[in-house]
């Protein structure tokens, strides 16, 4: 009886642990779930499965379409108007580094910090976490599915986009579409 109970409790703890490992950014998202300062975007695999219906046959965006078709989920947490963005970035960095991900690169460009973390399994990247921290902006993005870094890198090569400037408008552009 006691032994059974212990086993069951252990299993439950394991289940909770597994659950917690599901997404490394999940705690962050939960933390800011009700925070109006943040833009939160979550796109699930179910939604991704619907994308196939209207994939445009545009050769210019072919790389993009292909990259998207391999994804299974997307989470974005972003704000460009918070005071202590740097501390958010630090916290998030510490959180992500605690997980079982590898660092792809970390960049400091002027006042902006960037961190890319990946999870690789059998030569394929299954998770990509990007953290950006600036003076008053903070972005946490998590991509999962099958991620081809070369392909992702190609996406923006054709188009001249300044990522940081682009980032400053991410909130507004999101609003435009809603």
């Amino acid at each position, binding site marked *: 009886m006691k032994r059974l*109970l212990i086993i*069951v409790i252990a299993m439950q703890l394991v*289940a909770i642990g597994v659950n917690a490992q599901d997404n490394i950014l999940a705690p962050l998202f939960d933390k800011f779930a009700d925070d109006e300062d943040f833009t939160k*975007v979550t796109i699930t695999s179910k*939604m991704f499965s619907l994308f196939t219906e209207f994939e445009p046959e545009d050769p210019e965006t072919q790389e*993009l379409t292909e990259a998207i078709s391999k994804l299974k989920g997307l989470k974005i947490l972003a704000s460009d108007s918070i005071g202590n963005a740097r501390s958010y970035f630090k916290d998030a960095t510490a959180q992500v580094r605690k997980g079982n991900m590898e660092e792809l690169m970390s960049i400091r460009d002027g006042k902006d910090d960037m961190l*890319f973390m990946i999870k690789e399994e059998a030569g394929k990247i299954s998770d990509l976490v990007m953290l950006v921290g600036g003076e008053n902006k903070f972005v946490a993005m998590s991509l999962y599915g099958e991620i081809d870094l070369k392909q992702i890198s190609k996406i923006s090569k054709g188009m001249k986009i300044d*990522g940081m400037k682009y980032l400053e408008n991410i909130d507004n552009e*999101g609003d435009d579409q809603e």
Partner: protein
Amino acid sequence: MLMESTTIRELVEKYWNGETSLEEEAQLQQYFSQEEAPADLKKEATLFRYYQSNTRFRTLDERFDEQLTQRIERKQSRQRWLTYQPLLRIAAAIVFVVLAAILFRTEWMGETNSVAVKDTYEDPRLAYEQTKEALLLVSSLMNEGTQHMQELETFSEAQETVKTQIP
């Protein structure tokens, strides 16, 4: 004693079978206490002589009652503990159910929560656009990063060439 060894042997056999009467046992005892037993009855001789010398087997010890009651009490106290066992079981069951409920709730709430939060967009087209933008952002930021690294690389390459050219 004039008892014949054959009778003794019979008695001994009866004794081992547990069929002897008290009198017969007394007879045996007497025999073994007096006579030099034949070689094959040495074992029994020792045993009966021991019985003779040890009266402890006849009369109950003074402490017998005391020890007996002690044992009974000990057993009873264990039984008293055993009467609590159903309660313990119930308690364990409650703990189990509560734990299961908590787990289920967190799981379930998490599910519903994420269903509520899950898809920010209901229109797949909007979601698609957002994904596109997100990927563009990741891509451009990543390229910026690698660009920096390439710059660094060319810098270190330049350094190398400088080093090799100036001995």
